[in-house]
């Protein structure tokens, strides 16, 4: 399997200047690799830093040390040192991220929000919108809601809009932060199917899953972030 993402000797700490400049060490010496077609579950108890690590992989958080190389357009780029411009290009074409939060401009219709990542890639609006419709239908968002802003939706509906937006472009690498957290059984099954489809087209996936059933159903391996916590091996 071809390697798509490689984190080497990564460390992370937070310095809280507003609270007496206390420094909170989080990780040290993290080694992580992700290849095409696999889905790795990031594991560790609540508060162990799974989401923090995922945000580092997305370059949303900086790293204090080490490198995170991403295979983008035939080249390896280190997102810990890449320019903002390169990071945005990587996110546009290579690295997808389904977060737990939906951040959108109020009043923009759901359909446009879901279609946007494809439009940004240069796909014509019609094709992008058709694909957005398919995804929203599969995720059981009623058609009467498509022209409304998702900010008025319930938590579960917002999450499904987020998932639709995250899966519309066939990103080579995908990061999924609790994609099934507040979903009912039917919708969870749909998300599992979407993950399976992404795997079979060769996507490299890292995910945080709150329940064992989901993890067992789609993951090909797991990565325990706890073993890289600062002081874990003392």
């Amino acid at each position, binding site marked *: 399997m071809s390697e798509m993402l490689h984190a080497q000797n990564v460390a992370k700490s937070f310095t809280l200047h*507003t609270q007496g*400049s206390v420094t909170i060490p989080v990780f040290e010496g993290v080694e992580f690799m992700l290849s095409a077609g696999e889905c790795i579950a990031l594991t560790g108890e609540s508060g162990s830093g799974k989401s923090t690590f995922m*945000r580092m992989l997305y*370059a*949303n958080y*900086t790293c204090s040390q080490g490198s995170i190389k991403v295979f983008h357009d035939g080249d390896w780029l280190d997102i810990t040192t890449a320019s903002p411009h390169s990071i*945005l290009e990587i996110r546009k074409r290579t690295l997808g991220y389904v977060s737990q939060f939906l951040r959108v401009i*109020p*009043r923009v219709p759901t359909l446009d929000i879901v279609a946007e990542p494809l439009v940004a890639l240069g796909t014509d609006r019609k094709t992008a919108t058709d694909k957005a419709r398919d995804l929203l239908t599969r995720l059981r968002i009623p058609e009467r809601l498509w022209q409304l802003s998702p900010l008025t939706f319930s938590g579960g509906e917002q999450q499904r809009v987020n998932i639709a937006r995250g899966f519309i472009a066939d990103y080579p690498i995908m990061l999924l932060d609790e994609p099934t957290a507040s979903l009912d059984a039917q919708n969870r099954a749909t998300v599992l199917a979407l993950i399976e489809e992404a795997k079979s087209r060769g996507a490299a996936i890292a995910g945080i899953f709150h329940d064992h059933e989901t993890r067992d159903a789609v993951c090909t391996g797991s990565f325990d972030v706890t073993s890289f916590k600062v002081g874990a091996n003392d």
Partner: protein
Amino acid sequence: MTQMNEPLLRVDNLTMMYGDRVGCKDVSFELRPGEVLGIVGESGSGKSTLLRSISAQQEPTKGTVEYQTRIDGVRDVYQMSEAQRRLLMRTDWAFVHQNPRDGLRMNVSAGANIGERLMAIGDRHYGNIRSNADSWLGKVEIASERLDDLPSTFSGGMQQRLQIARNLVTSPRLVFMDEPTGGLDVSVQARLLDLLRGLVHDLNLAVIIVTHDLAVARLLSHRLMVMQQGKVIEHGLTDQVLDDPQHPYTQLLVSSILQN
């Protein structure tokens, strides 16, 4: 088509002093076509001074502002002749003021406000100017029947949209915005943000936007520069600066936002 990787604007060591007082100090950055740079910081941090110095409205004490012109290649905007600089400012550049009254002529119609910028670059055909003005009203979501009305009869949000139309009608490549959503109530802000984001994307505009509203900065800008006491203290990818701020002042700024 401009080369995407060539910077459109290059600011180098820009410093503006008011006597002994620092307006802004040693600011350097590049901006590419299609890129939106947000400048945030509290009142008096030098944001507006910096914007004025970059946009050729106030000659800096030190440093250079270079722009990739359409015809003459890279030029230092403060080395141009006054005539060249004025032409640049009313064609390839645009400036959206916080108060639409500063960017509009209140005693002529909405259509004339848009048409004026076209006439300034030599357009003389009344029919073309009028239809172009009308089509821009549509793009900023103002009804055609308001074309002959005075801006003073418009709401604040409409005035701001008219100011944007007036600015964008000459197809500028670089737009400066000073708190463009500042005086508007929240529902009008959202509409304007949506409109701006669409225009930036569709027209591949480079934008420098000064705002004290971090939510606006997050939704519109690709990169963020944080200023304090005239200096850039943090500069990077917008979500990285806001979600994992490194500098004490940025941390204070981010942690002071009220959650809703």
